[in-house]
């Protein structure tokens, strides 16, 4: 069970969070083209390695967070409130 460091609540068990999918796809503007929306809704880089993704701290502060996580190891590399910059955690803390 992963440990996600909620920027608000502190390090918490994965069970408190709900996965929200790829955060690297940026939601198009409302007036964007169908093609843009198609790419946003369907196409994924699906990287084998660091992956920026959304998690909701559903059993905590209800914040949507952006988490950088290595999909090979499940190591959580960084975490920030969504819309805030996702800086690498310098300590690389687990």
């Amino acid at each position, binding site marked *: 069970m992963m440990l996600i460091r909620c920027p608000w609540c502190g390090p918490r068990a994965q069970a408190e969070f709900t996965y929200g999918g790829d955060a690297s796809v940026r939601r*198009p503007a*409302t007036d964007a083209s169908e093609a843009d*929306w198609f790419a946003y809704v369907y196409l994924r880089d699906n990287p084998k390695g660091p992956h920026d993704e959304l998690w*909701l701290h559903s059993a905590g502060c209800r914040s*949507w967070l952006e988490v950088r996580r290595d999909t090979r190891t*499940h190591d959580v590399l960084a975490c920030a409130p969504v819309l805030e910059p996702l800086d690498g955690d310098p300590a690389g803390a*687990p």
Partner: protein
Amino acid sequence: MTQAFRLAAGGEIDRARPLGFAFDGAPLCGFAGDTLASALLANGVHLVARSFKYHRPRGIYGVGTEEPNALVQLATGARSEPNVRATTQELYDGLRAASQNRWPSLRFDFGALNDAFSRLIPAGFYYKTFMWPSTPRAWLRYEHAIRAMAGMGRAAHESDPDDYEHQHAHCDVLVIGGGAAGLAAARAAAQAGARVIVCEEQPRFGGSITDPDAAIDDAPVGAWIERARAELASSPRVTLLPRTTAFGFYDGVLVGALERVADHLAAPPPGFPRQRLWKIRARDVVLATGAHERGIAYAGNDRPGTLLAHAARTYVERYAVRPGTRAVVFTNNDSAYATALALHAAGVDVAAVIDPRSAPERDGPLASRAKDSGLAIEAASAIVSAHGRLRVSAVDVAPLAETRSRRIACDLVCVSGGFNPVVHLFSQARGTLRFDDALAAFVPDCLPLPITAVGAAAGRYGLADALAQGHAAGKEAAARTGHRSAADLPEPRSESRGMTTVHALWSVPSKGKCFVDLQNDVTADDIALAVREGYTSVEHLKRYTTLGMGTDQGKTSNVLGLALLAERLGVPIAAVGTTTFRPPYTPITLGAVPGRERGAHVAPTRHSAMHDWHARHGARFATAGLWLRPHSYPRPGESEDDAANREARNVRARVGVVDVSTLGKIELAGRDVATLLNRLYINTWDTLAVGRCRYGVMLRDDGIVMDDGTTSRLGPSHYLMTTTTVNAVKVMQQIDYLLQAVWPELDVYATSVTEQWSATAVSGPRARDVVAALVDIDVSHQAFPFLAAGTCNVRTAQGPIAARLFRISYSGELAYELHVAADRGRALWEAIITSGAPFGLMPYGTEAMSTLRIEKGHIVVGAEADGRTTADDLGLGKLVNPGKWCVGKPLLSRPGLTDPQRWQLVGLTALDGAMMPRAAKLVTDPDRAAPNPMEGHVTSWCYSPNLGQWIALALLAEGRARDGETLWAVSPLANARVRVLVGSPCFIDPDGKRLRA
């Protein structure tokens, strides 16, 4: 009850506490402190099992978790447990154990015929045969026979009566293994002030010390261990967990450990669980898990009476048992000489120590000591084969280079082929291993996580090393977690140095079966066969031969198998590598894994505030999401269907009340709520006035309908949204997401108030009478028209209750929804029941509600909106405001979603007075041969008590254009077909006169 093989003195057993037990029905006796295995050996019982495939007689082989053979069926009845290792099961008074995988008896087993035919059934034989005749049925028959032979013990028939619990724990330093290395680590970490947890799978701390005369800090080993344990036990920052196996290493440095709280007892004490599953979140881990001994492959190396050397010594020293009368020790390293010495000291006749090394005493002090004690050592020799059926009776020994052998009679063979450091958890934690040629073993190499392996687990078999490494690792682990002590604890010291080399002898060429994996009956020949056929990757070897796939997961066999594979391939062992170490390290009870969250608690159950009333009034419940909802309220003698029909009729004729508390409710406030709603729903919201409600439909990003419900404007910037019961959480998450991540500029705050409000719907032509009698506002059509929203007070027996009132109708009748604070829900309900009585009010359940909405043609998310339908499919296309954007709209115009041939919502009426079959499909020709093209399907159906016929809602290809057509609704499962007439989905009051009454 003689315990003929029990030594008169010594050991850690309590001779003052004799315990009676039975094996295969024979009454026996042991002592407190025994395991089942040691007690059996004390009684001279070696034969305890039959092997998996060949049903070979098998005895106790090891002394702990490494045991491949001695698996028994423990206890009877509901507590019966298969495949229990006799070597780890503590003895308790009254223990009953039985042998497994034999018929009719352990000594005489028909299955042993397999052994006779073994040449026909080498590794993987089943892939090559049983293909005739080539029909699926034929294999089913073969399979039936194969399955009956396979398996080991039996699952109990009754439900497990015991309780299991979880325990989360957090620590700075987790020490796994409570041997010398682990205790040294724990002391050092605790001294530095770290929070420490120590798991030890055995009931006692101390691990395995090879050198019987060793001392630590000048004290005898036992005394030091006890002092260390006591010190740790008294420290408030230390948790000692004996009988606790760390079984798995998981993400985020979470270690799963299983504590056997009551397995050493016949049953758990009242209130206590049988086992406790720990989830330990550690910041740093010290692995001090020791090493497992392994065997050597020679013919007949599986005969009962063959033990690992370290196991044999442990039986002598810890359990005061003589595991035989005349022993042969076969070892390729120094450590088994301690066994020879221990046996000798215990009065066992040590016939010979067979050692492939040319000068064993060069390699270690123990061998010299054995020589000095007068033990016969046969250097440069090996056991070629062992004899005896139910117990070993002799071994043939030959010098390495020669074929001529000499027979030595014996009833005990103690083997050591070297040790495998217990690297399971290290490897699970993504640590890499390297093959150490001197030790002929895989040892820990590197690990990206804060985990240190020490002592025998790191290939340091000496006590001095174990203590030094453990101490240093404990100190460093504490330091890494920010704990440093001012006064340094002195490192515990010992002079005892363990063996540092193993002479790699893996197998002895000989005729007959040389077993590699004792549990799964994998022989050296099987490995040769696999290589010959090209199954040369370790993973193929494993799967083709089943090497290491038994309950012991190859603890004593894997490395031996790999070595033989490497030998065959002519490559170094390091090049073949290992198979993957997977959790659990030792098998864990299924019951312990979910703990209490199973059975009735497998998912939480939600109850509305009126639940007890419903239950008391005969409601039958059905689940909706996590909720329990009344399905119907059958009266005595009434069926559920009849009850639902009565309830539905009553709503149309008079009035009914239904508990709709489970609907999702979200309160929204702020300046921009209307903007948010405009973007969320397909329809328009900026025109909604205060005190009004509106129905809305939400789409997913892909344009498909996600949810529907009403939203009411309670105040200028205050709204209440309702969602379906099942999607309440999803919609709330979507709103949170959009507000936080997409439109943070919107001034909207939202919170779920599902739990705050109990909700009821009163519907039927007399609904106004009922509500008017209850509330303090004017509810006439003029004052409170259709889709009005407001507040009022409800008169109840307990006084007035503040309520929210809505004129919303799901049934199609005149209807009011009343919401009150959940702690007043029951009072509201009872008030409605009471004041409704004069008007003929009855409660109705979800089944009647469903009938009513089908009659009215209202869709349900989940049935009509099935995750594939668009709003237009459902006839709601006109709600889509073309002038504004909303979620899902950009992808709505894809050709597949606008295809004219899409299935559309229609109503169906069963013709010929027939009953609508359940979950029917729509076809034009029911007799057409398969595949019969389906034009649509029924989504919801019911007997309409108000129309007196069976009706349905359905999705039908180009359905709206097919009004008046007849089709067949067919259910091959029910062997039913009925002609149906296509029409509008709204069967009752199409112009909405009733709800606007």
